[in-house]
């Protein structure tokens, strides 16, 4: 693969995966992604939507640089500083919340720099707790705080609302909208939930089934994060018309 860093912060995130294959249990290569192109303007919010098991997380891992075993190219914005929120929070259970955050700061920085972030995400009262003492919703918030703490040039979110109850997910969506707009960070969200995608994103990428590629690309009208119920319904209808093949599966999930 090729790996390039685009100069300047206001540059897009571009992923081109010509082919990505895994080796099956029988030792045969199975192609999971083919001819996938994904371009995301600087500071915009893209959502990658597809049914479970279609390769979304693999694409995210390639975007993150965690998986270099593919043919294609990856261009990342600015200094290439990545903030990532994994599906499971992946906090270090033996470190307190404060220490989990401190670990991603440079040695000369103090936690004070994150005061605003900690306040927005409502983590102030939990800094001395260990991750095992937190609810899933809180642990996700810590993971989000950690991702923003590195002052990312691009942010990758892997199903951050999965297994959360409706109210908690709604609040987290609001916080994410606030943070991505305030910190001006190019963001790619992976989700199976069309509603999350429509509420948060500027651009939707619908994946085809295996081998996955982008089947339909759809730009949404601004402003994101503050769309009315009517707008959301309208977008959903349009999605239904343009991506009929597997949409029922996606929305039901």
């Amino acid at each position, binding site marked *: 693969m090729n790996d390039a860093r685009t100069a300047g912060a206001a540059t897009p995130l571009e992923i081109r995966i010509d082919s990505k294959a895994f080796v099956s249990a029988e030792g045969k290569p199975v192609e999971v992604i083919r001819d996938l192109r994904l371009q995301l303007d600087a500071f915009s919010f893209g959502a990658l939507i597809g049914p479970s098991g279609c390769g979304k997380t693999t694409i995210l891992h390639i975007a993150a640089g965690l998986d270099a075993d593919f043919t294609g190219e990856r261009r990342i914005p600015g200094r290439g500083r990545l903030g*990532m929120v994994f599906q499971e929070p992946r906090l*270090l*259970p033996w470190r307190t919340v404060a220490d989990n955050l401190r*670990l991603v700061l440079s040695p000369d920085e103090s936690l004070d720099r994150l005061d605003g972030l900690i306040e927005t995400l409502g983590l102030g009262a939990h800094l001395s707790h*260990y991750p095992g*003492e937190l609810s899933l919703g809180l642990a996700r918030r810590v993971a989000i705080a950690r991702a923003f703490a590195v002052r990312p040039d691009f942010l990758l979110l892997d199903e951050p609302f999965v297994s959360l109850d409706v109210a908690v997910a709604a609040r987290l969506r609001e916080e994410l909208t606030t943070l991505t707009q305030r910190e001006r960070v190019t963001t790619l969200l992976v989700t199976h939930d069309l509603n999350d995608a429509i509420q948060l994103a500027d651009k939707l990428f619908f994946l085809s089934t295996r081998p996955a590629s982008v089947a339909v690309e759809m730009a949404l009208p601004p402003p994101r994060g503050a769309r009315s119920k009517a707008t959301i319904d309208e977008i959903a209808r349009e999605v239904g018309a343009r991506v009929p093949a597997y949409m029922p599966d996606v929305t039901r999930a």
Partner: protein
Amino acid sequence: MAKVVSLAVLLGLWALIAWLAQSPLLPSPMSVGEMIVADTRSGELPFQMACTLARVAAAFAIAFTLGVAGGYAMGRSKLIDRYADPWLVVLLNLPALVIIIFAYIWIGLNETAAIVAVALNKLPNVIVVTREGARSLDPALDDMAQAFRFTWQSKLRNVVLPQLAPYLAAVSRSGLSIIWKIVLVVELLGRPNGVGFVLGSSFSLFDMTRILSYAISFVALMLVIETFLVQPLERRTNRWRRNAA
């Protein structure tokens, strides 16, 4: 409380049997106690125990450092594991006594040989346990550390070692008890001091009082180390688990 009662009963039984037997082969707890006090006052007992303890510490440090490094490498790399595993099996199955004899013959009857022999005896066990720990490291946390660009030092300290901690704690506890027993054999066979040496010379004189007083003193010392050093350390590394939901 139960521990105290149980030990008191054991002591009582010993006193009773010694009183009934009236033999120099089974001295009473009283005479053993008197010898412990006398030898402590003369400085003999502390000196011999210090010699043994120094060997235990040196052998432990060597076995632990090499074993953790080797076990980690074998747990993380299939290639290293494939090549090093047969050596490990050989070392695991070599009797302690054979290693001690080899060391004394090849290196000489000296301190280096003694410590090397003990460390080599403990090494394979440290490797096996650490390898298990390294195999069970969570790849999800590896990805996290890579995504957030942890330095290798930070990854070692914050991601790897805490996951290995339960394995390292187990290996230190079992290690300490195995090592001090082997140290006594090494001393018996080829050192001019230490608890093992004293036990050997007392054996040739049939001096049961001295054998018992040194053996008991050393067991007591190891219990103190276990209670006041190993256990608190283990509790400290497991602190984060206590409140976990």
